[in-house]
């Protein structure tokens, strides 16, 4: 049997058609099965908060033990005065999510995420 790791790249268009909970279930269902999920456009802060919460509720001893997640830093690390005043944040950029026991981030900078993936 061939060994390998499945990677799902999900387009911004597909993500825009999903509700927050649908996105989170899509991610967690895939990641629990050992799939690496790459989102063309990242989750918003509220979705990130719910993803952490839902991840915690899915963890099992000797089974799924959580996620590794990494996003490019936003283009605008320090929002300008007007954006801060209006409470606007830069949209999240490409995001990589995988099972914590298979995906390990090696290095991240402004435009490069370097990750190491192992088979189960």
């Amino acid at each position: 049997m061939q060994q390998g790791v499945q990677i799902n790249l999900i387009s911004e268009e597909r993500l825009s058609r999903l509700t927050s909970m649908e996105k989170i279930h899509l991610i967690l269902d895939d990641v629990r099965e050992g799939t690496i999920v790459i989102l063309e456009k990242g989750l918003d802060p509220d979705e990130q908060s719910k993803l952490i919460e839902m991840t915690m509720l899915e963890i099992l001893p000797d089974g799924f033990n959580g996620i590794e997640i990494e996003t490019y830093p936003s283009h605008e690390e320090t929002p300008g005065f007007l954006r801060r005043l209006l409470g606007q944040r830069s949209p999240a950029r490409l995001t990589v999510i995988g099972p914590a026991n298979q995906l390990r981030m090696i290095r991240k900078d402004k435009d490069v995420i370097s990750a190491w993936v192992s088979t189960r």
Partner: protein
Amino acid sequence: MSIFVHAKKRVSRFLSAFFRKRRSRIGIYGPPNAGKTTLANRIAKDWTGETVGPVSEIPHETRRALRKQDITITGTNGSTITIDIVDTPGVTTKIDYKEFLEYGVGKDEAILRAREATEGVAEAMHWLREDIDGVIYMLDSTEDPFAQVNIMMIGIIESRKLPVIIAANKIDLPDASPQQIRNAFPQHPVIPISCTAGSNIEELYEKMVFHFG
């Protein structure tokens, strides 16, 4: 009682209920082992004489959000704030019970701790969305502040428009770099402190009175 006095009392009760400021609930958030419970204990001890919860070197010692109510902090100019401090479990995206085995904890106890920790983190995230009025985000100054969980948590706090103070803890350690935390989050006040040595805690109290008042 005359109608006038009765009416005056009712108006007074209405106005006081309307204008009375609710106690702010200030959550201490951050990654595991940043010193959140040590800070919560110090704040509670300094202003009420009591503590909040136990401290240990084992990650996720705090597995439930712990609340200490009615803490009144007075600044040097005489201004005061009354807050509830909510000490939360360290936020993470992964918990493996095997990590606890390295600290000499038995397997059953480790599995129980891991389960409680996962529930605690989920609860802490729920609190942040529903019940927190301000945040002290606690970071270990010897660790990389750019960890994804910190970036996400600060983003979540900002999106809720909650006032936040970043406490750069463990400045007594040789590898501490509070400046790196300032560089990571220049949009927020960063106060370098050492909870165990008690360094610079007064500045944190001043900032709390100003920021959360």
